[in-house]
């Protein structure tokens, strides 16, 4: 063996090691680029949700705290529409609506939107909602939930804020902890269902007409089957089912 061939870190690197290192290095760089490309290209699309955090504006409408914090407003598309309400982080705001429930209000926040689903992320602090003294209830009064049918469907329990666009992607096991944290903190949970033609539906989940509590958490983001009653609530669908009607697939 050539005297040159023994690698010692503190000495000059032998030629054979330099050559091998160059080849291995180039090969590893090529492999690195190929692996990055492959892993990145196989990711699933994250859904079309958006949240323009910077565009804070006033929204006029009627607020309710039950089953979750919501605002009925004409300002989404000119027709009476329901926007769910959430804070800037992971929390619901229904408890902070208090005496203003059922009255015309002005809410300050930014819009999170996915298809026809909307949530207003209200600004931090206490000033996010105020009574709209000039406002009228008109068509905006919250209707009574109207039973449509009983269903038994397979799907995934999601938190509405992330699904509407706060996070992309916002479903599946990797997002489970986040969805649990959102629902634990009062953001409205929803049940998302699909068929083989990729047609889908989303229903806000209630239990006996009220918002769900922490009993729901073990099922969040897992594939589950739910038997319950679909109700029309203005432009929203509700799925009313107790936790006992949920089973894991």
């Amino acid at each position: 063996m050539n005297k040159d061939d023994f690698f010692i870190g503190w000495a000059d690197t032998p030629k054979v090691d330099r050559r091998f290192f160059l080849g291995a290095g180039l090969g590893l760089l090529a492999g690195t680029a190929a692996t990055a490309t492959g892993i990145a290209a196989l990711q699933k699309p994250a859904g079309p949700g958006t949240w323009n955090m910077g565009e804070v504006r006033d929204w006029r409408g009627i607020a309710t705290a039950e089953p979750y914090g919501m605002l009925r407003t004409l300002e989404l598309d000119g027709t009476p529409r329901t926007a769910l309400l959430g804070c800037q982080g992971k929390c619901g705001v229904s408890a902070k609506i208090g005496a203003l429930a059922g009255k015309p209000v002005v809410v300050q926040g930014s819009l999170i939107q996915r298809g026809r689903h909307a949530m207003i992320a209200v600004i931090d602090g206490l000033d996010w909602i105020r009574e709209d003294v000039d406002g009228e209830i008109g068509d905006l009064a919250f209707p009574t939930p109207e039973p449509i049918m009983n269903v038994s469907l397979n799907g995934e329990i999601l938190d509405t804020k992330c699904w509407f666009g706060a996070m992309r992607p916002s479903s599946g096991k990797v997002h489970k902890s986040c969805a649990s944290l959102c629902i634990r903190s009062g953001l409205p949970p929803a049940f998302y269902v699909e068929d083989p033609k990729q047609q889908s539906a989303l229903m806000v989940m209630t239990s006996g007409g009220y918002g769900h509590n922490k009993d729901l958490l073990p099922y969040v983001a897992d594939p589950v089957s739910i038997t319950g009653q679909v109700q029309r609530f203005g432009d929203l669908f509700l799925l009313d089912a107790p936790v006992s009607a949920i089973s894991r697939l």
Partner: protein
Amino acid sequence: MSHDYKAVQSTPFKKRFDLWLLIGIALYLVGFIAVSFSTQPAGESLHPVQVVIRATGTLAFLLLTFILCIGPLARFTDRFKPFLYNRRHLGVTTFLIALMHAALTIMWYHGFSETNPLVSVFISNPRYDSLSGFPFESLGFVALIILFLMAATSHDFWNANLGPGLWKTLHMGVYFAYAALVLHVALGAIQFNKDPIYVGLLAASAVTVIGLHLISGIAGLRSSHRDGLDGWLKVAAVADMEDARAKIIRPAKGEAIAVFRDGEKISAVSNVCRHQGGPLGEGKIVDGCITCPWHGFQYRMQDGQSPPPFTEKIATYATRIVDGVVYVNPEPNAPGTPQTPSQIGASA
């Protein structure tokens, strides 16, 4: 100048190695992020924070997979010794990338609520009794703690003060970290994104690491022939002893012995380097000193002592030459004991 420990110093080779490493990391992250945004349908792009979480997570796993292949590969071919020599830079870099992955994940998925983010990591998913539903985040957390302990003790200061034995034992924790990470990915990302290529990539990584370690481990166990003469072990015929190189002899008891030839002299020392337990018998005599193939630590042939100012000492062994065949006494002298080399051609 006193030398309680000697740090492996920065060298031009190390700098070149680190440059390659940085280029590779940049290439991976930039490539991953660019491809993530360019391949998704319009209006359905992933959130930038979530793209970076994925980019750093996958990179840290792939880097650790590569790091764990270096050890066994270096036992099969000398050409991987330079990678071995720079392995610690790779390890610390991997920890930093994993830390970024963890910090972003904890901030993004577990932050922004009244629950403490670190508490959320462990309670948000309560399904500890399920396999496919298992809170995989906790496995990643365990691996990160192990990688942190190793990165924090990676400096030679700790190697010297904990002792090479304890240091190596501590650093075997990386195997458990790797096991936790394979399951972190298996029970996490690929429970949701079921593309078989992801499963295949993960399986190939795990099989490579496990396979290389099992093969090199089993190969390392076989002990060499123990023909002897009066309790001395046969090494080789003088003619088969390559100059400046060693034969490694594994006695039934005790550590392996490295028997070196330097010109017309034969000497034997312990095969175990004091620094990190590197195989001295796979080293070479450079400038009259036995030089460890791992980090270049040196010992004088005649007494097993590192040349001043260094203070490391290894055991020496008596040798003799009978009828052109080299024998070694398997009973070690105390580390640093002078031992007269056997002279080729001087024996009866």
